[in-house]
């Protein structure tokens, strides 16, 4: 579906379903197999409403892509770690078993996202912009510096500030 054809009344879920084939491709480029991409899509679909509860999403398809991409990267990251673990640390597997970071272990996704949003909102606007360019657009600190017209060193400080602020959100993911 062309983005320009999206009526404003469509819910995120409807946009997601209408663009399922495209989102599937986004996921599969990251996780490689169609089966895993299906899993990612199911998981991502359930997470959409949590994000929408934080604020109105101005670019619904863009946000659907963001959620799919991030869930897919998380699957990929998890599988990479488990593979490395099996290769290099076979003997200690029983001591420290592979984690099961299933999404439903986060108690309340909506509350967690709202809490994170509040922490990011307390940062200076430019710091949040630098952080979003890094976290969501995957830009390097050097690229962000060029975009914002400041030094990569300053960007590094801003990202560190954001990271430090986010450390205060640890309680959201502990005890799972």
């Amino acid at each position, binding site marked *: 579906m*062309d*983005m320009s054809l999206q009526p404003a009344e469509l819910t995120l879920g409807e946009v997601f379903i209408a663009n399922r084939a*495209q989102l599937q491709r*986004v996921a599969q*480029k*990251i996780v490689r197999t169609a089966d895993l991409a299906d899993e990612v899509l199911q998981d991502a679909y359930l997470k959409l409403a949590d*994000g*929408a509860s*934080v604020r109105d*999403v*101005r670019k619904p*398809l*863009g*946000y659907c*892509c*963001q959620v799919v*991409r*991030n869930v*897919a*990267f*998380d699957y990929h*990251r998890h599988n*990479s*770690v488990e593979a*490395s*673990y099996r290769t*290099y*640390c076979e003997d200690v597997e029983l*001591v*420290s078993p592979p*984690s099961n*970071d299933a999404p439903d*272990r*986060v108690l309340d*996704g909506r509350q*967690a*996202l709202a809490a*994170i*949003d509040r*922490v*990011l*909102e307390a940062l200076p606007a430019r710091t*949040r*912009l630098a952080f*979003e*360019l890094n976290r*969501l*657009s*995957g830009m*390097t600190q050097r690229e962000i510096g060029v975009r914002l017209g400041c030094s990569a060193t300053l960007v590094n400080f801003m990202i560190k500030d954001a*990271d*430090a*602020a986010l*450390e*205060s*959100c*640890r309680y*959201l*993911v502990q005890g*799972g």
Partner: protein
Amino acid sequence: MWPMTKQDKDHDPVWQIAWTWVRRQHERGGLGEAAGKELAQWLAADPLHRKTYDEAARLWLLVGLVPPVNDVPKPDDGTDDSATR
């Protein structure tokens, strides 16, 4: 609000290392083989490392699900679908 003084007090070195690993895993190209091995060995060295890493990864994902307040570009990492540009 998070006053600067609070950040130092709450600074946890294991968390910082775990967060940095998760961050590196999401950089373009990801971890190379050598770094992947280093990460696996760090995780195996102490159950606290594994626990903290899993928490950092979970928070990293959640942060990535917050709708942006800025109009930021899509990643230029080949996951984009050119049909929608």
